[in-house]
């Protein structure tokens, strides 16, 4: 059994065998940032935040797949109603307003948490919940109304794609509301610990991203779909 360390050592220690040139020794130069270049691992907050950011990007790719299906199947109305005939733009405007305000209030709640103002934080989160729930109620009412009028998701490919895309966003909002309540409970019972702060950071990333997706939804689906 040959021992690895028994092999002949090389004459010269080659620290740069690929001739990359090393201007930044460990911990120096502009690349000395932690987690970026040579400074060692990042702090936990950055690791968690960045990881969740990557997850959000994957979620946006999933929405892109649903958007693609919608774009392709838009014209597949099978003799049934088109978007222009079905969409209630006033309702959509209301939904958009509610979601935007909930995003704003969520941001304020984040500021409050950083300033350790518990009451304002909980109030902000509660308002976020209310506006988010209002959005969902309007959307649920719209869906039920469409089904009543015989324009449910089984009527045509266009409607299948519509219900799935908008419904997927709605499901994400619902999951977000559940998460929101959990965060309110966690801050109330455990106080402001680093891991709780990290989770609220992730939640606010999620909530703002949902509003960004909604911008795409109301533009591509509702507004462009209304141009008959």
């Amino acid at each position: 059994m040959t021992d690895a360390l028994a092999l002949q050592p090389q004459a010269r220690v080659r620290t740069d065998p690929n001739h990359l040139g090393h201007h930044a020794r460990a911990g120096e130069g502009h690349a000395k940032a932690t987690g970026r270049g040579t400074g060692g691992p990042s702090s936990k907050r950055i690791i968690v935040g960045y990881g969740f950011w990557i997850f959000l990007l994957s979620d946006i790719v999933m929405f892109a797949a649903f958007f693609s299906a919608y774009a392709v199947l838009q014209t597949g109305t099978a003799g049934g109603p088109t978007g222009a005939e079905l969409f209630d733009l006033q309702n959509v405007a209301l939904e958009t307003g509610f979601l935007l305000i909930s995003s704003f209030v969520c941001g304020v709640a984040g500021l409050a948490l950083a300033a350790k103002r518990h009451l304002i934080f909980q109030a902000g989160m509660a308002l976020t919940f209310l506006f988010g729930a209002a959005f969902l109620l309007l959307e649920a009412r719209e869906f039920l109304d469409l089904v009543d009028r015989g324009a449910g998701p089984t009527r045509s490919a266009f409607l299948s794609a519509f219900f799935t895309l908008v419904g997927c966003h709605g499901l994400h909002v619902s999951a977000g509301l559940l998460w929101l309540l959990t965060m309110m409970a966690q801050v109330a019972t455990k106080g402001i610990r680093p891991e709780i702060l990290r989770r609220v950071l992730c939640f606010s990333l999620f909530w703002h991203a949902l509003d960004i997706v909604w911008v795409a939804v109301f533009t591509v689906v509702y507004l462009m779909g209304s141009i008959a």
Partner: protein
Amino acid sequence: MSLEDRHHTDTAPGDEYGEEDIAKGLRGYFIGLVLASLLTVASFAILHAHFVWAPAIPVALLVFAIAQMGVHLVFFLHITTGPDNTNNVMALAFGVLIVVLLFGGSVWIMNNMNRNMMPPMSASPQAPAMPMHH
């Protein structure tokens, strides 16, 4: 924290670099809210605006949508072009690339497929005859 330091640190996405002033933070969110609202109103308004050439309306909607997404990213998610945000922007750019490739590619491919392979569209839905499955 000095500007020099921004080269040597990293910021988590959603965090604002070195910002501890509540008033300044609130101001950022307010501006974001106002801009986003304006862009939303503009989108709805331009839909039936008679003074805009009709084929340009979808383009305008797209521009407003992208602008509003930018407003959300900058004012709500604090994504900046600073050196502390490089990784976050790179990740975002990667996501956008994939979305563009997937969405654009799929629409282009399926348009060609439909044009070549689907039976001509008529008023009533046609179900093509299907072979029996054994």
